[in-house]
């Protein structure tokens, strides 16, 4: 699992999941794209240590750490913060896709509802209800027990239900 082709496959398979994870947290289509690139640059740099059986969990962990680093740095937007990436070529975005997201009212509503959730509940909601991972898989990624995942998912859904009701 060391070749460029393998990495390309992994990127095409998982980059949307990572993008969604970051987008739901950040609610910024451009910033999410920047951080997805950062996550996969980190993955590529450590590609030799990659364990094929845990790719998804590994990528989510990198994404979570990148997100935490971002919150810590308190930067509104990491424009060209990725040195290596900036060296290679300018950052680019899928403009059409981003426009679509911005126009989509359903996504806007959901974003608003999710925004008020604490990070832990957001994590569980994304992994369980957007990415359809099992409680066990979500627990592994978030380093919490399966039971804890179920408790958090219930809390997240209850809160979201209330928020959506109030909006109506």
């Amino acid at each position: 699992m060391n070749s460029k082709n393998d990495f390309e496959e992994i990127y095409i398979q998982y980059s949307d999941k990572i993008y969604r994870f970051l987008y739901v947290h950040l609610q910024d289509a451009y910033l999410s794209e920047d951080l997805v690139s950062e996550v996969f640059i980190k993955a590529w740099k450590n590609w030799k240590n990659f364990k094929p059986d845990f790719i998804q969990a590994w990528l989510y962990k990198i994404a979570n750490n990148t997100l935490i680093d971002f919150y810590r740095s308190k930067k509104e937007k990491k424009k060209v913060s990725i040195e290596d990436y900036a060296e290679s070529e300018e950052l680019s975005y899928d403009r059409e896709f981003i426009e679509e997201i911005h126009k989509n009212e359903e996504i806007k509503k959901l974003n608003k509802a999710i925004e008020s959730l604490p990070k832990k509940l957001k994590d569980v909601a994304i992994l369980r209800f957007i990415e359809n991972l099992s409680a066990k898989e979500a627990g592994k990624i978030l380093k919490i027990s399966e039971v804890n995942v179920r408790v958090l998912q219930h809390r997240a859904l209850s809160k979201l239900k209330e928020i959506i009701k109030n909006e109506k």
Partner: protein
Amino acid sequence: MKNNFRQDLLEEIKDQASEKEAEELLEVAFKLNNLSAIRRSYNFKKAQVKKIISVKPQKRSFFAFPKILIPVFAALVLLLGSSTMVLAQKSLPGSTLYPVKRLSEDMIVKINPNFKQEIIQRRLEEEKEIKKAENHAGKEKDIIEEKSATTEAKEKNEIKTESQGSKKEIEETKEEKKIEDKENNNQVKGAEDKKDKSNENKSNVNHGNENKENKNAEKPEK
């Protein structure tokens, strides 16, 4: 959302809520699942990954260790360095730490030139200590030689006495053997003599009988 996943989720939610509430929560989960439709185009992803791959993968160098360990490592180096410096101050010419002592002195002199006098005193003290050590070593040598001489003499005496004792023992055993041999010979001789005597007696008796018979035989002829 797949049917199986929906069913499993409903059962999970039912554990913590009533059936009605569980259905409502499931609807919320369904709405959230709409966000999974967020997907970038395939061509965009292809282009992005090529850019990422153009970044060189990191090679693990020997010195690449966690940044957290750097202060610990630095503290260890400082501790080891300072402790060797302190230990080196008691060293004398000829010991392995002496060059360290000289080096530290040179460094101090560079900072404080007045330290030269202290260095001269140190050299004198070193000389004294070396002399002391030599004298001590000489005395020790004498003592050791004396001890070795006495022990050698003792050993020789012991060997002599042992050898003499063994000679005596050998002679005594020889004498004992001689006496035993003699006794044996005497016993054998005695036994032989007895045998001879008994034989003689027997032969005498036989002769007597024969003579008697001869006499008796001669008598009727008369």
